């Protein structure tokens, strides 16, 4: 914001001159609604915690996640789309940093369980990889660019009140239900044919983190170079 408009640019002079006459409606103060919503969220959180502590934690994490997603304009769709569309890779790099942080944190959690002799949490999410992964990712990519958001982005924008994405959400639910209904068939026919790869089994715990961080760092450098080349 600041670097451009240190001195009033012609744009600012013209726009303020133009804008005063046209459409400024007095804005409604939304802070009371915000406070009411916050109190409601707290109350619901307390109610959920009384039902089950896990639900309370899910509610808390969900609310924080949504807030950060909206305020940071963190958009997974844009992180993959903008490099091709405009050459900007700022969001791509943000996502890579997030991946790096979570790689370290999840390894810590899993390794902690491993040396404690406990079952490693989250191993059910080590899904088989095959051509189906690539085909599915490609289809998902097309869908999210057309819909204007991935799953979390769509939910966040519905919360913001963006009308078109109510439509995205509706078909997102329809698609998810269809997918869930037929998942058994897809699993047996395609998904389970691929190997399950858990990196620490191959590289060891330290090697797995190192390998993953190395790939992420490489992508980060590439993203940076790409942006410099495209936007110079």
């Amino acid at each position: 914001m600041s670097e451009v408009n240190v001195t009033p640019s012609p744009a600012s002079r013209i726009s303020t001159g133009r804008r005063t006459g046209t459409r400024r409606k007095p804005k409604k103060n939304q802070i009371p609604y915000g406070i009411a919503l916050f109190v409601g969220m707290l109350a619901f959180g307390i109610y959920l915690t009384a039902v089950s502590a896990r639900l309370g934690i899910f509610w808390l994490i969900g609310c924080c996640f949504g807030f950060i997603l909206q305020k940071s304009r963190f958009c997974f769709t844009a992180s993959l789309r903008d490099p091709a569309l405009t050459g900007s890779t700022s969001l791509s790099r943000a996502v890579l940093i997030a991946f790096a942080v979570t790689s370290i944190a999840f390894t810590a959690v899993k390794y902690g369980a491993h040396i404690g002799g406990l079952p490693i949490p989250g191993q059910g999410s080590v899904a088989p990889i095959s051509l189906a992964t690539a085909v599915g990712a490609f289809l998902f990519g097309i869908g999210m660019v057309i819909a204007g958001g991935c799953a979390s982005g769509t939910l966040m924008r519905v919360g913001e009140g963006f009308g078109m994405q109510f439509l995205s959400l509706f078909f997102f639910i329809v698609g998810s239900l269809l997918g869930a209904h037929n998942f058994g068939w897809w699993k047996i026919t395609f998904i389970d044919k691929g190997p399950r790869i858990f990196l620490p089994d191959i590289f060891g715990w330290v090697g797995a983190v190192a390998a993953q961080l190395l790939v992420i760092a490489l992508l980060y450098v590439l993203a940076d170079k790409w942006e410099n080349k495209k936007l110079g």
Partner: protein
Amino acid sequence: MMAQEVLLDCLGEACPVPLVKTEKKLTTLAVGDILVVQIDHSCAMKNIPEWARKEGHNVEIEEVDDGEWEVIIEKVK
């Protein structure tokens, strides 16, 4: 010749449509012209200014209503 001001209505359009429309429209304008892009998709408020600034244009954002913004771009090159 007077610099002209052009209004681009992108209300109701989701990312990345506003950005693509802005890019296309801006190429048809002359240096010194001003493009006012109306948007109500919050992520366009990030990617349009970011793109335009990197291209070297002067950019301002104004929230004209709750959840409705105008991105004002002065074409400088």
